[in-house]
């Protein structure tokens, strides 16, 4: 499945969230990461995130889709992240 993760958390935890998310997904722009993920890995990611955040003030959203094919992506301005896995 394809997952887009978006987060808005207290400044103290921003860096920590980013570190967790980067293990599973590719960075796209500030506070947004996305990528193909197996259901098991997705659960692991959610678990790690939920252990860290403060449920009263932080918000993390996951857009979960069957594949990358089900949506169209349009970008205006700069493409900040890398495309694909060829560096």
């Amino acid at each position, binding site marked *: 499945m394809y997952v887009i993760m978006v987060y808005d958390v207290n400044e103290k935890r921003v860096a920590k969230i980013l*570190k967790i998310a*980067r*293990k*599973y*997904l*590719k*960075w796209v722009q500030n506070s947004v990461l996305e*990528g*193909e*993920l*197996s259901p098991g*890995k997705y659960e*692991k*990611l959610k678990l790690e995130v939920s252990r860290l955040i403060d449920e009263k003030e932080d918000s993390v959203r996951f857009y979960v889709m069957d594949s990358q094919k089900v949506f169209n992506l349009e970008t205006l301005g700069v493409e900040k992240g*890398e495309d*694909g*896995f*060829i*560096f």
Partner: protein
Amino acid sequence: MESVYLFSSGTLKRKANTICLETESGRKYIPVENVMDIKVFGEVDLNKRFLEFLSQKRIPIHFFNREGYYVGTFYPREYLNSGFLILKQAEHYINQEKRMLIAREIVSRSFQNMVDFLKKRKVRADSLTRYKKKAEEASNVSELMGIEGNAREEYYSMIDSLVSDERFRIEKRTRRPPKNFANTLISFGNSLLYTTVLSLIYQTHLDPRIGYLHETNFRRFSLNLDIAELFKPAVVDRLFLNLVNTRQINEKHFDEISEGLMLNDEGKSLFVKNYEQALRETVFHKKLNRYVSMRSLIKMELHKLEKHLIGEQVFGSEE
């Protein structure tokens, strides 16, 4: 799970529990949990700590030299160990009859795949069918290898008839170094496929050192070469035809080296991009009643071999 390809030069590091590539243009993070293997083409520095990390995350890393030849693999400590299966693998190698059964199956199936590949493109492949019969009658492995070589030569000449630009014909298979455009592309594609199969073998209980068609010896992995035979037409040869006939690849993508040719970085990364796409492409699998990717098909082939070795199901019996 993704394959990571590195063409740029820099340092590979473990950082914040994930993979970090530091280059002149900045730091790039690679999601470690989603990496199947890493293929390195550029001049990359790395340290033991990084290899330890890969080992822990079960990620093999393959190295290629400037010419695009395979150099070697850091094959992490195996995590799926089965003494039982290793014994079975050895048993099927040592017993001539059992070994021939597997080798013959690989050869005749790879012939079938060549025939299918040509038929789809409306090329008559009667002579290959003849070779298939010969292979079924072969009595030892070296005879089988000989037949395989002859058939492949004929097969490549038939592929040539599908190449519109005659500068890109194979003519004669040359290696180390390949001498013309076509041979360079096919050699590069084959070595990519070998490493992909090796990475997939790592995810099974199979030992890549014991092959059946290719001699098991002191040098290197051979099981991946066996399994790759089955997929050369559908992955490498198809990619070759597409790239050449759509003129995506041209003489600008090659550099001359002593006595031969090599793909330059631009050529390599164009090839790799299309190679990845080819592995992702799905075909309809009748038995499973769903679409499966090329990569999963390779994995399924390995599982079939595993089942054959432990005596659950004869290799190539179903469908």
